[in-house]
């Protein structure tokens, strides 16, 4: 039996392309996802910058209408299916979740690797639409427009279908891991909130994604064989397509945001060094949101021709979602109350998140009000709403998580000053880009418009300038993170003084098998008051916490202390 030699970790215990490409190690898979997902974000982001540049003034600025329509479509397809859905679960979930539950890997490592390749194949198929014929009309693919355009739609729907499988398999893997592989002592009430939220996300992934599967399959057949289910010219019903589409895509927005909630909970706890207020409420509200999320899809269709009765019911349930979400927001704020708040860069993102996500959420409620949505539907108000929740919610949280776990991932610290500057650039740029869009929308500026009336020019131009500030911030982040590999200080075991297992029970970067001995958990993820002994020497914890609950108990060793040699 071999404990890894000192200095060996998951990054350097084996070398070469194959040791990565065929790795079954959840941490390596997480890192590979990180590379892929960042590339998707970069590509989607560049398209967004082009879209904004075109909108700098009315009329043609840099491209014609067809190029514009394809740009925003591909922007959205990449951002939604290739970036934001896998972003937190597949990168941070993969890396952190097994360690946080005290397991040596996910329940099905092979399936995990397969999910990664399925994702890559799906993304590649979707991207071929670039050369395989035009694909415009937005990420919603509404029939019959989508079946009237070139064959690009066949490729994109196949790509989405394949990426959906990846999402299902990842979710399935995580659910089983959380249920079956928790370390001794890690009861549901002690789970980090990040796990709770990934768990709720996984449930939505498993339940909702098959429906988008069958939907895009039907759309594919509609285009390929004219089966006449959605195309009115053949006797089909286009509104039915919208029901199918949103039945997945609304729950999908919670696939995007729930993991972000998890990250924020962990950040709030760690950087306030305080129990997350209302732990049970925060944990269970994730599940409540996941559940309610299935019942509101019709709020995208208030003016589509669905029956008024359905609109009313959907509107009512839509507001109800605000309540569990509000419970979270309030509890995050309360966590800081009488805490010990440290404003490191990850915490800056958490605080930023409270600001931007709340704006996104409240405007979501406005859109849920039937009479108001009639005016605001398909205007820039909606565009601003969903960028506030997706970019201002999910992406900001993902950036917070990235900064938080970066030292654990790679064992290097990035430059904290640059990180703070970048955070401020991102915050300013983001708000300057998207806040004016609320006003544009309320003034009546429709979305998916290549050209617009001169009266909207000022706000559009402002929004475009904002996108440059935002881009500057994001490129700066990419820059110093990459630089940290070469010039970064070596990261300590637990630089933030966190209490979850990835910080307290494994090395930095983690050992190939995560733990030498299966940890035994004796306190909740945020029970700082039981862990005072860890902080005797200051904020940074430099020793593994093998001492149990801090009452001086002897190190407990789980029955299984063996691992196969390699």
């Amino acid at each position, binding site marked *: 039996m071999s404990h890894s030699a000192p200095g060996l970790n998951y990054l350097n215990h084996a070398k070469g392309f194959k040791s990565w490409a065929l790795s079954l190690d959840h941490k390596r898979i997480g890192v590979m996802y990180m590379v892929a997902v960042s590339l998707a974000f970069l590509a989607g982001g560049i398209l967004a910058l082009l879209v904004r540049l075109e909108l700098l003034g009315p009329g043609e600025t840099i491209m014609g209408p067809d190029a514009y329509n394809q740009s925003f479509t591909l922007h959205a397809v990449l951002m939604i299916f290739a970036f934001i859905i896998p972003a937190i679960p597949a990168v941070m979930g993969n890396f952190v979740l097994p360690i946080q539950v005290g397991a040596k890997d996910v329940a099905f490592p092979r399936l995990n690797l397969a999910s990664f390749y399925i994702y890559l194949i799906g993304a590649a198929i979707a991207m071929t639409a670039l050369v395989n014929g035009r694909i415009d009309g937005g990420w919603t693919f509404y029939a019959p427009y989508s079946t009237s355009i070139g064959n690009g739609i066949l490729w994109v729907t196949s790509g989405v279908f394949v990426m959906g499988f990846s999402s299902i398999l990842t979710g399935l893997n995580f659910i089983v891991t959380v249920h079956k592989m928790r370390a001794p002592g890690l009861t549901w009430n002690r789970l980090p909130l990040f796990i709770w939220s990934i768990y709720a996300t996984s449930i939505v992934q498993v339940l909702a994604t*098959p429906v988008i599967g069958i939907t895009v399959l039907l759309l594919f057949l509609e285009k390929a064989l004219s*089966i006449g289910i959605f195309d009115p010219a053949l*006797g089909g*019903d286009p509104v039915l397509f919208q029901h*199918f589409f949103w039945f997945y895509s609304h729950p999908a927005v919670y696939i995007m945001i729930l993991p972000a909630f998890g990250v924020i909970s962990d950040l709030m706890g760690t950087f306030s060094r305080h129990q997350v207020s209302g732990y049970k409420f925060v944990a269970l509200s994730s599940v409540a949101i996941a559940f309610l999320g299935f019942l509101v899809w019709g709020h995208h269709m208030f003016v589509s021709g669905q029956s008024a009765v359905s609109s009313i019911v959907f509107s009512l349930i839509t507001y109800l979602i605000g309540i569990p979400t509000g419970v979270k927001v309030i509890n995050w704020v309360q966590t800081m109350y009488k805490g010990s708040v440290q404003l490191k860069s990850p915490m800056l993102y958490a605080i930023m998140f409270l600001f931007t996500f709340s704006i996104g959420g409240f405007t979501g409620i406005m859109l849920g009000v039937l009479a108001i949505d009639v005016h605001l539907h398909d205007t820039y108000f909606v565009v601003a709403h969903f960028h506030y929740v997706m970019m201002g919610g999910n992406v900001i949280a993902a950036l917070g998580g990235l900064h938080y776990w970066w030292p654990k991932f790679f064992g290097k610290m990035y430059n904290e000053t640059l990180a703070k500057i970048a955070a401020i650039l991102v915050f300013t740029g983001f708000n300057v880009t998207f806040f004016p869009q609320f006003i544009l929308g309320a003034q009546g500026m429709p979305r998916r418009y290549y050209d617009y009336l001169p009266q909207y020019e000022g706000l559009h131009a402002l929004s475009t300038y904002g996108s440059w500030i935002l881009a500057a911030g994001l490129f700066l982040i990419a820059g110093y993170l990459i630089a940290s590999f070469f010039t970064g200080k070596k990261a300590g075991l637990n630089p933030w003084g966190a209490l979850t297992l990835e910080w307290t029970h494994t090395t930095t970067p983690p050992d190939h098998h995560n733990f030498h001995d*299966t940890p035994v958990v004796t306190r909740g993820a945020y029970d700082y008051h039981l862990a005072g002994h860890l902080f005797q020497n200051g904020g940074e914890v430099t020793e593994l916490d093998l001492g149990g609950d801090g009452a001086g108990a002897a190190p407990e060793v789980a029955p299984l202390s063996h691992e196969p040699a390699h």
Partner: protein
Amino acid sequence: MANPHTNQPAHVKHYFVSSEQQFDAAKMGMWLFLVTEILLFSGMFVAYTIYRSWHPETWAALSTALDWKLGGLNTIVLLASSFTVAMGINQIQRGNQKGLLINLVLTFVFAGMFLVVKYFEYSAKFEHGLFPGAAFDPHGVSHGFDYATYNVPYGPQFFSIYFVMTGIHGFHVLVGMGLFAWITVKALKGRFSAEYYTPVENAGLYWHLVDIIWIFLFPLLYLI
């Protein structure tokens, strides 16, 4: 048989603490997968229900175009195969490898029979122009019946839904055959025992689901 490093049986992967944990995990994973399958089909069932409620006459009229005798035969074939899978699992639980093999082969054969019958059904439809969607063009007379009478509004939709549902189901049968072929090979190599038969159990669960979905498809499409 034991893994020298973990003191666990060889089939237990190093990241599991015990054989039970591994078995439980696999089984839960399979159940979740089946849930996704049900949701996939439920999308189709919703489409079916909606179109049926909009055009009940068309649906009632066109279900007569489907041969309930062949469909019934297939129902029996699938039920039989579900039974043989269950028997196979029962055999291996008692350590009877030969019993497992026989039942696996039988299941495989039944699944094949199902597809052969399906093939005849499909070709009989195609012959008379009963295609999905735009290609729908019923014509020809057989046994004194004029297929052109099937040319009713929303007929194409009926056949679209019929072919998509049975097509996806048929694809699942095909995947099932692949699964059973693979498991048969493993069984031949003696991989399974009374202690370890997780793949057989999971393939069996999958197969029961394929069977159950057919039990719903058959009356909905052929009978009513």
